[in-house]
């Protein structure tokens, strides 16, 4: 992911029992259970989750409460501020901004919630295979990752944007994570290399378990906590990428709307018709803030020793 996390860059403590087996030995506190216990008591986790949940619910059901539908124009009330009829005001041609913001949030949410974790999946698979197989394959993959890190993902997306514009917005769900998995793959790779020498992995290998099975059953569950953090922060990365691309006109194209295009439309009049700029901006900032809080709480729960030990 394009997120750059020092905690993530550090190697995790490999736990001998993979997370997936936590349900079987419920008596002893497994790693997953410990993380959940710590997570449960952090306010940031709950505040963040609840805000995200409310935003999702609003994006789905919010437009139903308004008298206006998608694309409806109220020609008698163009460019008016928030009122009883138009809760967030209207734009220059009478689109209801309350409905538009909810619809824009929908697309941004889909891109974030699908695209972010997708990047983590790519990172986990590439990193684990490169680290476990090693040799020439590992060399080639590492070099390829280094190559992709030369350019920030925004510029690669900018380069292929003429092609993206011709595709539907759904393409962004796949193209954004396609250029945002490299750093996490490096982390997974280095963790995998240290796991490869552990007894439980060796035992599986000598018993003749297939490489793919070892990776999915033993390696990936052991880096699962890192992956969960990465998936969460990947949501932030995906939404930020989409809104930045759309803001400058390279992402979502009209007639589709996302928070990025709404903020871009509101920018010219930001000082005179502030509502056009502020409402989509608040929705975006609130979403990123809440997801960031969850990610941060997760990171603390996974590695409680970082940042609290002090005499």
């Amino acid at each position, binding site marked *: 992911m*394009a997120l*750059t996390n020092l905690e993530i860059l550090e190697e995790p403590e490999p736990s001998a029992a993979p997370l997936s087996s936590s349900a079987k030995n419920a008596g002893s506190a497994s790693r997953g259970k410990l993380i959940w216990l710590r997570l449960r008591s952090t306010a940031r986790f709950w505040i963040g989750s609840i805000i995200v949940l409310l935003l999702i619910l609003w994006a789905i059901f919010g437009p139903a409460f308004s008298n206006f539908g998608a694309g409806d124009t109220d020609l008698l009330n163009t460019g008016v501020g928030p009122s009883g009829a138009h809760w967030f005001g209207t734009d220059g041609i009478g689109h209801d901004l309350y409905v538009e913001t909810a619809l824009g949030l929908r697309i941004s949410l889909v891109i974030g919630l699908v695209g972010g974790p997708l990047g983590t999946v790519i990172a986990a698979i590439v990193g684990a295979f490169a680290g476990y197989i090693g040799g020439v394959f590992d060399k080639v993959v590492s070099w390829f990752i280094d190559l992709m890190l030369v*350019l920030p993902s925004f*510029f690669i997306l900018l380069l292929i944007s003429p*092609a993206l514009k011709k595709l539907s917005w759904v393409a962004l769900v796949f193209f954004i994570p396609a250029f945002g998995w490299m750093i996490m793959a490096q982390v997974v790779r280095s963790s995998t290399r240290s796991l490869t020498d552990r007894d439980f992995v060796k035992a599986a290998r000598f018993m003749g378990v297939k490489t793919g099975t070892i990776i999915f059953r033993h390696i990936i569950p052991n880096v699962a906590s890192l992956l969960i953090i990465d998936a969460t922060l990947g949501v932030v990365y995906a939404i930020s990428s989409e809104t930045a691309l759309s803001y400058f006109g*390279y992402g979502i194209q009209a007639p589709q709307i996302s928070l990025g295009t709404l903020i871009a439309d509101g920018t010219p009049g930001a*000082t005179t018709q502030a509502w056009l700029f502020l409402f989509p901006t608040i929705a975006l900032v609130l979403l990123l803030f809440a997801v*960031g809080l969850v990610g941060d709480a997760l990171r603390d729960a996974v590695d409680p020793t970082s*940042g609290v030990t002090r005499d």
Partner: protein
Amino acid sequence: MSLFLLRRFVNYVILTLVATTFSYILASIFENPAARYLGKNPRPSNETIARTLDRYGTNPNTPVLERTWHWFTQLVFHGNLGQEYDGTSVVHDMIVRSGVSLQLLLIGSILGALLGVALGVWGAVRQYKASDQTVTYLSYLILSIPVYVLGVLLMIVATKFNDVIGTNAIVFTGQYTPGTSGFWSILLDRLSHLLLPTIALMLTSAASYSRYQRNAMLDVLSADYIRTARSKGRPRNAAMIRHGVRVALIPMSTFFAYSFGLLVAGSIFLEKIFTWHGMGELALNSVNQNDINATTGSILYVAILILISSTLSQILYAALDPRVRI
């Protein structure tokens, strides 16, 4: 040690060249330079279009690999990146524009790093006190605001400020006011234009640096050698700075390199918002204008910046951590 750095540097240079060449190929595939002429009235004949495009080395009828090879040899042997669609030399334009862009990028990122490190250290020392909590939540908030939105918000604040005091004290459109003369007034004018974009870039980078610096510093503060230094009789502040901050900066040097890419992207957004005629404008506009040479030129600019920052962070790492200096 210097051999190691040199090897890394050569590796980066090769990666930069390869990445830029790939970018040229991507741009050649996805951009359609002929589109610029098809919309003209009267529409130029196909032969004229082909001849013009040939001159720029962007004729879609020539195979992509052949064009790429031509472009690559021009770059490597002549240091030539071709011409933009209006005939300007890309290299010349890049030199002029990067002068504009680097002002913002360098001032903003250096101030941001200094402020971020200072805030991080301060937050770690005052962990869980009200001031630490305030800085923490403020930096979360700033990190959640895209930098271009931050730029617009600062513009709104500046407009309100100008309205209140009644004069145009903060100017924020473009890079300078045309027609200003005299050394001091030009300097003042430039600084005034720099103010808002620099603040935006500085706040964003300071917010992320402070988070990491705070964590790195907290890890260090509980270390034995800090206690040793204290028990030798070093004052608290001296122990913190001499033994604490220096060690806590080691992981940061890697983070600087990683985050620099985001910073470059951020400064390019800000240039666009504040209508500066820098590399950002070239990068964003050239894609819309189907200008393959200019697009690749701006990509090369970004890649070179990343190359320099990665090398610098390697050197910084070696300077801070004696263990790698073998």
